[in-house]
């Protein structure tokens, strides 16, 4: 299938703190890029089939660039090392469509970031400030100079951010940072697990819809309650593919080199009809009759309500 990805070039690369590199990604012709929400994520397609997800750090109003910041993790799985060590200005890289974003409401907003956890909050804070909001505070807790210091500095100058250097002073108490926002405000946190645990403890009594935690993992796929992670078994070829709940069967097959004809990807054109033999498909299409559904499914929208689904492929 046509890959759901775009081509981008590294228009600029800059060191953005200790072990952190910032990349400005643009369309090869400088065309506008698809829009993104504050705090959105971007998938990067790296050599060897690696896919890595990073927060966009720039203001969503900048419609011709995606800016990401990558901290080199020596103990990581190789994605950040490739990006920090090898990806240079002028290189081309595959990217996905931006997805997700932070829930931002009209209430006063405090962001608590640990180190590189500042990334999703920079685009969010920039967007709120551009809207004229002054009831925003970004707290960045870091050992030494924070990552992306140049992007944080204008917010500090405007009185909308504070950097807490734990090498130079005491670690701030989360209760103190949150206190001005308790009652009427909203709070979000991103950083190491210990910081998130402390944040969750400190906001335990806050209304759930005004507390948000951003973890260093890709956002989960949205899926109906009945959908399960499942093993997709290919009856003719004997292959098996693990498909997460909510993920597209069509894309899972394509990722394993099995291209089936498809077009609308929304369950109406019927082109990606596949026979099924065993299991409990969640059909979700608008094309098949009840009779057809007994033996067929549309791979673009079908999910599984059981742990195993056998298809006639």
């Amino acid at each position, binding site marked *: 299938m*046509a890959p*759901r990805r*775009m*081509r981008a070039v590294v228009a600029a690369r800059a060191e953005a703190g200790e072990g952190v590199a910032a990349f400005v990604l643009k*369309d090869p*012709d400088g*065309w*506008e*890029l*698809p*829009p993104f*929400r504050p705090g959105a994520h971007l998938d990067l397609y790296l050599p060897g089939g690696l896919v890595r997800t990073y927060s966009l750090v720039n203001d969503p109003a900048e*419609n011709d660039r995606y800016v990401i910041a990558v901290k080199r993790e020596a103990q990581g799985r190789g994605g950040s090392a490739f990006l920090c060590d090898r990806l240079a200005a002028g290189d081309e890289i595959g990217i996905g*469509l931006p*997805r997700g974003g932070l829930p931002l409401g009209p209430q006063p907003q405090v962001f608590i970031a640990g180190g590189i956890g500042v990334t999703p909050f920079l685009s969010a804070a920039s967007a709120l400030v551009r809207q004229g909001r002054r009831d925003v505070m970004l707290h960045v807790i870091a050992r030494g100079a924070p990552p992306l210091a140049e992007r944080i500095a204008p917010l500090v100058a405007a009185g909308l951010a504070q950097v807490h250097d734990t090498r130079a002073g005491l670690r701030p108490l989360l209760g103190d940072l949150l206190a001005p926002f308790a009652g009427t405000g909203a709070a979000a946190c991103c950083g190491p697990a210990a910081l998130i645990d402390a944040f969750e403890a400190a906001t335990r009594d806050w209304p759930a819809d005004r507390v948000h935690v951003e973890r260093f993992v890709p956002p989960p796929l949205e899926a109906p309650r009945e959908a399960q992670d499942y093993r997709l078994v290919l009856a003719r070829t004997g292959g098996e593919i693990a498909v997460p709940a909510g993920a597209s069967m069509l894309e899972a097959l394509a990722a394993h080199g099995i291209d089936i*004809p498809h*077009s*609308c*990807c*929304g369950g*109406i*054109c019927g082109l990606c009809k596949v026979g099924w033999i065993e299991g409990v498909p969640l059909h979700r299409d608008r094309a098949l009759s009840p009779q057809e559904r007994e033996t067929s499914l549309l791979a*673009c929208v079908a999910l599984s309500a059981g742990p195993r689904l056998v298809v006639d492929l």
Partner: protein
Amino acid sequence: MDVQELATGDATPASAGPATSFVGVVRFLHITPRAFLPMRAMPEITLVAGKGIEGDRYMVGREEGFYSDRPEDGRQITLFELETLDAMKRDCGVEFGPEEHRRNVTVEGVPLNHLVGRRFRLGETLLEATRLSVPCRHIEEITGKAVFDPLINRSGLNCRILSGGIVRIGDTVRSL
């Protein structure tokens, strides 16, 4: 297929059914060089017979569209009814702009769904409608708007270009 040969006759094929008479107008023109990238509004576009629109993703030789791996004459140029945008706002509460539907030409006063199999004039150019467009789920990913269902059966028209030329906003669209 010999496009020049097709372009020599203005007669509508007999198989297309009774004649549909209309005079409409071009309201918006949009192209984009690659799949997923935003459509850019243009004051005029250049149509090349048998190939596509200069600078657009489906132009033969460029082939950077979402469906370029499945070439089809009808992807040379696509049209959309301005009236559908009005209806989506009125009936579904969805604000959907001419830059978002990802068809090239937004027309007003043209009954697109009646034109499959017919030839008609778009400004100085001659088009032949090959099929109705089908909504595609990736439009929701790009726009973040729930437009897939409201677009069913009114998602535009795919055409091939029999005779090329420049099309401008305000040009007349007319039946033959």
